[in-house]
Structures are given as structure tokens and as C-alpha cells.
């Protein structure tokens, strides 16, 4: 599983694909030799009792084999650049995003981030359904070390953007899924980070709300913020992205020009994790 004899011949970076070296401060995100190993368990004992019984029977405590979701991934993102990440299901896109977002520590390698970073992965994941919108905004923002005054100042904007002023004091367990997603998006967008990580979430809410989201996204683009985006929408990505990273089975196959990357992705030689498992 570790070796891939069928690796594409053009997988090595040719000199013109390597972005020209720039000053360190121009780099927003730098990823060096990052590998993420998951343990894949056949039968993980979930209780101490089970573990002890199994240990007595088989004499071993390990029940897993390592599975590399990312293998020796390196690239860097320039400040103000839009970087797209593409790859088939199971290529490691989400793992890569979570590693950059700092929630998944890499097994090997380092991730260096210059500037404040926020992610639009799993919108509203930190919400408590027993609480209302305002309480959830406090909770969510305080996890990002905002002071009480800062949070308080943001609340009207967030509620306005999410169009939830009327329901601000309703526990969010009574929200519709659209309302929930809108609140999640509004909270995330209000933080105004230098670097934004997006995982195909621009499709929340109804058409009108989506239009609003697109406008915000455009504003981010205009402000020359660094954006890292995962998407399956190749057409829009080709327009948006300055650079595309193509992943295949946890490895970087190509970094560079969007057009070439998408061609390679659509090419018959592209390896999917599903087809070659």
C-alpha cells in the first residue's frame, strides 16, 4: 500500500511549476513534509474490560494498522493567493484542510501559518443546541479568544447577516437547517480572518442568501485575503484559483496552474483511492 509503482511519470515538479522563491513574510501558509497517519481499527475495544479480556486472550494491545491519509505533502501559499485543492473522494482533501486549520495535528512535518486563520469547515459545529443564537455566538467567539466587548459589538452584525434577528432568543434546536447554516456562516464570516479555509460551503441557505455569501466571498477576494478552497466545481475553481494542488491517495500529484491541474485530474491516469484500494 505504501509503494505506488503506477505513479504518474509527470508527478515530479518541473522547474517552471515551482513558484519563484519569495520573501518569507509573503508566505501565508507553509506546509512541509506533512504526513497524517490514521489508525484503522478492525475491532477496537471500546471499554477497558474488553481490552483486558482481549489482552489476556491474544496477548496484544494493538488492534490497528496505520493508514496514511496524507503522505509527505509540501507546498506553500502566498499571501493574497487563492489556492484550490482538488482530488477524488478519499484523496485527503478534508484531512489536509483540517491539518491546516490546526485541529488535526500532523503525524510528521510542520504547518506554519502567518496571520489569523479561520475555517468554514463543518459550519456551526461548535454550537450548543440548548442555547439561543446570542448565547451561541458568545460561546463560539469566546473559543477563539474574543473578549466580551468584541463579541458584543459583533452580535448585531451577525444576526443581521444571518437574518435571524427575530429568532435571536430562540434555542437553536428549534431552528430549521437553513437557519442553522446561516448562523454558522454568519459567525464564521464575521471573524474577518487573514486566511480563510473553505470547504464547499458556499451553498447554504436559499438563493438570496447564497448571493449574499458570494458577495462576501468576493469582498474577501478584493481585499486580497488568502483563501484555501476545496471544491468539486471545476469550472468555478478554474476561474477563482491562482494555483491548484492536485491530490491523489494522500500525495501531491501536481501543484501549479489551474488549467493543467484540472486536466490532469480528468485524465485517465489519475488514481482514485476507490479504484485501487
Amino acid at each position, binding site marked *: 500500500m505504501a509503494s505506488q509503482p503506477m505513479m504518474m511519470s509527470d508527478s515530479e515538479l518541473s522547474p517552471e511549476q515551482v513558484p519563484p522563491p519569495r520573501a518569507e513574510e509573503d508566505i501565508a501558509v507553509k506546509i512541509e513534509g506533512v504526513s497524517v497517519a490514521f489508525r484503522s481499527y478492525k475491532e477496537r475495544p471500546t*471499554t*477497558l474490560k474488553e481490552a483486558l479480556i482481549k489482552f489476556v486472550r491474544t496477548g496484544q494491545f494493538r488492534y490497528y494498522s496505520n493508514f496514511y491519509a496524507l503522505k509527505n505533502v509540501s507546498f506553500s501559499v502566498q499571501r493574497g493567493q487563492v489556492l484550490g485543492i482538488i482530488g477524488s473522494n478519499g484523496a485527503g482533501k478534508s484531512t489536509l484542510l483540517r491539518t491546516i486549520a490546526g485541529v488535526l*495535528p500532523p503525524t510528521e512535518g510542520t504547518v506554519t501559518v502567518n496571520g489569523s486563520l479561520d475555517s468554514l469547515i*463543518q459550519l456551526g459545529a*461548535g454550537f450548543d443546541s440548548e442555547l439561543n443564537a446570542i448565547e451561541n455566538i458568545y*460561546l463560539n467567539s*469566546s473559543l477563539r479568544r474574543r*473578549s466580551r466587548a468584541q463579541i458584543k459589538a459583533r452580535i448585531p452584525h451577525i444576526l443581521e447577516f444571518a437574518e435571524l434577528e427575530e429568532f435571536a432568543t430562540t434555542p437553536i434546536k428549534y431552528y430549521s437547517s437553513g437557519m442553522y447554516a446561516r448562523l454558522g456562516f454568519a459567525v464564521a464570516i464575521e471573524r474577518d480572518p487573514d486566511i480563510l479555509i473553505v470547504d464547499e460551503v458556499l451553498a447554504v441557505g436559499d438563493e438570496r442568501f447564497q448571493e449574499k455569501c458570494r458577495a462576501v466571498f468576493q469582498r474577501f477576494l478584493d481585499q486580497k485575503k488568502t483563501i484555501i478552497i476545496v471544491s468539486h466545481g471545476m469550472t468555478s475553481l478554474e476561474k477563482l484559483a491562482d494555483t491548484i494542488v492536485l491530490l491523489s491517495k494522500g500525495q501531491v500529484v501536481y501543484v501549479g496552474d489551474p488549467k493543467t491541474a484540472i486536466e490532469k485530474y480528468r485524465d485517465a491516469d489519475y488514481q482514485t483511492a476507490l479504484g485501487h484500494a
Partner: protein
Amino acid sequence: MQTAVAVEPVRSSSSVSSRVASNLFIDFFRNIVQYREYLKQSVARDLRRRYKRSVLGYIWSMLNPLLMMTILAIVFSNIMRHSVHDYAVFLFSGMLTWTYFSSTSQGCLGTIRANARIMEQVPVPKYIFPLSVGFSGLVDLLLSFVPLLLVMIVVGHDIPVTIFAVPLVLLPLFCITMGISLICAVSNVFFEDTQHLVEVIFRAVYYLCPVLYTREHLPQWLVKWASLNPMFGLIEMMRGLIYDGQLPDAEKYFTNFGGCLVVLMIGLWIFRRADRKFIYFL
């Protein structure tokens, strides 16, 4: 400033082994300060939840331990008739120290699991979840001084001035409680059934602590061993302040504090080691 914020979670976890003990402590206390807003929110939420649920609210939550205490006091004050006067006060002062320790530690068992979804989205130092349990426990502890003072008045036990020195003991108590809480929290991430084991251990340790009795009631050899547990001394010191009106002996206090810090450090160390594996287990 903001740069450091974003980079830190990744870096700190990748160089765990090289970190020295002092860094564990500095990080720990710095994170308490940095996440104070979250901790405040979370404690407020806990309290609101606990006291809003029932009509009696606060009174109810005080009634429950008070009732237990009354029964224990009635039963044991007869047994202890000759050696301990005002047994209810004696019992209460030891009990609230122990209760904080044991209910916080056991309350931390499920915290990592319960907050798994947050950890998948926001990079936070994961011990802030056990920490918030620790802080809301402290609030409960302070609130239980109301019934304590009530009992003291009813029984006619003089309220000593030294009661104002209680925070002096709360500090090491908080440290040891967090140390054990972190270990409990870690254990439960890997195995779902550790609470049974933890319960048994806590019960055993409870009877080896001078909550129901004084050290004079135990045989010498047992005291020697049982008092190695910093909780033994903490309960005695707390009782000294509330019941006897006695400040702790400086040497005893600092030795004990040192023991509590060692426990906290072990807890932090274990937590740090396990920290990066959590995400794979949840």
C-alpha cells in the same frame, strides 16, 4: 499577536517531548488567562442550567447535600460523641473539600467526548473543557459556604476569622483536582467504562481521607501511608480553617502544595501525551 495565535496549536503539539515541566505549567496558566472569556461563559452556562431546571433552583441543589450531611451527622455524631464536638460542622468542612475534588474529577470523565465536535472545528487547548468543570465546581464550593455558615449558627459553633483564609487552601485543592481530572478525562477518551474503575478508586480513597474521622482515629502506620495523599492534608487544613480556627502550619502547607503541583504536572503531562490522539478516537 494574531500570528502566534494561529500557529500555536500546531507547533505546541509537535514538540511535546522536548518541553520541560515549567512550560507545561506556564502554558496551562496562560491558557486559563487567554480563555477566560470561554471559561466564564461556560461556568455561567453550567450554573444557569443547574439552577434553572427546578423551581427550587439553588435551594434544591443545597438541600441535597444538606440532607446527606444531616443523616451522616446524626449517625456519626453518636459514634464520635466523645472525641468530636459539633460533629455536623466537623463533617461539613471536610465533606465540601472532598466533594469538590471527587465530583469535579468524575465530572471530567465525559468532557472530551462531549466537546468532540468543537475540537474538530476550532483549534483549542483541549484541557479548557475539564478546566471549565473545575471552575464551576469552585463556584459550587463557594456557594455551599452558605449552608455551612447556617449550620454553624444553628449548632452554635463560633465562626472563626480564619475562614477568610480558605482561598489559601483552595489554590492547592484546585491544582490537585485538575491534575486528577485531566487523567480521568484522558482515560475516558480511550475506554468508555473507566468511570466504574474511577468510582471504586474514589470510594477507597474517600475512606482513607479524614472526612468522617480525624487522624487520631486511625492506627499510626496507616496515617503514615494515607497522609502521603495530598488530599489528606488539604482536608485537615480546610477543617483547621473552618472548624478549629487554626491556620495551617507553613511547612505542612508548602509541602502539601508541592505535592499538589506534582499531581497537576503528571496530569498535564499525561494529557499532553494523549492530546493529539484524541481526534482519532472520537
